């Protein structure tokens, strides 16, 4: 059974373009595709929550969400390729799909692994009521690095 505490990818790939790194990178076979131009399908039962698909998606169209993180809070993980990077513990402005500010949010982690090929995964703690809205953070201005 899928565990709500462990979380699941949210796949927002909505156009039939020839692309399948999410399928290639998924070791548990949870993401499948009929043809190269089909939309990916997720089998939540098979997903181990490794988040590799979030970093691998060339279109940055996969997010990761723990719906039931804490009482009233969820998390959202998204790929981030701008500098300066946010840091764990920093408060940033969470934004929606159109880049509009939704609320302030705490950065829970900024993951960088070799397998991510230079894409960082940023995870924010967000009020659960915004879990379907928040998909990114306001980019940090240059020279305004966090020193917390």
């Amino acid at each position, binding site marked *: 059974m899928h565990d709500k505490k462990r979380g699941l990818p949210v796949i927002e790939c909505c156009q039939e373009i020839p692309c399948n790194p999410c399928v290639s990178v998924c070791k548990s076979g949870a993401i499948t595709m009929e043809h*190269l131009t089909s939309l990916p399908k997720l089998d939540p039962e098979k997903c181990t929550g490794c988040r590799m698909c979030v970093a691998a998606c*060339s279109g940055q169209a996969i997010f990761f969400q723990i719906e039931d993180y804490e009482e009233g809070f969820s998390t959202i993980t998204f790929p981030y390729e701008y500098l300066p990077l946010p840091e764990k513990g920093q408060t940033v402005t969470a934004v929606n799909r*159109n880049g509009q500010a939704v609320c302030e949010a705490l950065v829970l982690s900024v993951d960088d692994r070799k397998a991510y090929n230079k894409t960082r995964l940023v995870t924010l703690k967000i009020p659960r009521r915004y879990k379907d809205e928040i998909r990114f953070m306001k980019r940090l201005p240059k020279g305004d690095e966090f020193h917390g």
Partner: protein
Amino acid sequence: MKTDILVVGAGPAGLGAAIEAASCGADVCIVDENLRAGGQLYKQIHKFFGSKNHYAGQRGFQIADALVRRTEELHVPLLLDTRALGLMDSGDVAVLRDGKAEAVTAKKVILAVGAKENMLTFPGWTMPGVMTAGAAQTFSNVHGVLVGKKIVMIGSGNVGLIVSYQLMQGGAEISAVVEAAPEITGYTVHKNKILRAGVPVYVSHTVAEARGSGHVEEAVIMEVDEHFQCIPGTEKTIEADTILFAVGLNPRTELASMFRCEMTSEGALGGVLPIHDEFMRTSNPRVYVCGDETGVEEANSALDEGRLAGLHAAASLGFENESSRERIKEVQNSLMELRSGKYAAKRLACKERIIRKGAMYYA
């Protein structure tokens, strides 16, 4: 210099062609006018689409590196800073190298010279600060120079969206993406990346004027009607130091013309281009074409078209191995797959028309 196959252009198409032809045992030589191989791939810092056999998930410059490594393993001479000038009366190809023109004798020639960017004209378009998106990308991703801090991008196709994203990564602000069509024309995933980053997008708009004293200081944008004519009274000014054109590309056909390759025109693929058959052979049996030169698509299709040209050119000279025919089928199927889906329907129809015309030369 003498070779079985001369490949002109070391982008994805040319490298794909050289790798396949050399793998079949043909003597291959590549010339490219640039200082580095990889063509546009080398300027791309984003992760690519496609499948594993197109290096999907790798960034463009990483794909260029992988392809160049493969040509090195196959001992294919890669002559950089070497420009193919044209066809000589003798049938040789003239190339310019170290300031000297020399003749290359080749049994087959594969042209993979790519495409060039379109421009728009409006008052102020010749002012410093107005340039193509590709130029801005070369400055930032090859030379590490950001062309401006406040940029207006004209065009929302994949080039406009990707270059906007990359310039933001470099520290610029995209003040606006301006698109004459009623909606963003590039891939939705590219669109969503720049929307999340908070970039203002003006659809059904165009840039009517660039203003400034000696350098761009603002862009005047106007709304357009369904015939793409400016609607009077809709002027808005946007503060900007740079205006970029991402308004399409057109195939570079000069060399193909010199080789007497018959041309056709396909608007959706960028305009006039050389006719070719299903093996990328032109009306001149000595000459193959591949990549953006045969219709502007994307790097994966260019790579596959190049592979096809290389395999067939080699086979036509007797360089065939037991898997050549199978490999040709495999690459043709891969191309078909890249052109499948709703989004590619127009491109596929154009390509099918071109190939039908090309087949007539070999019926």
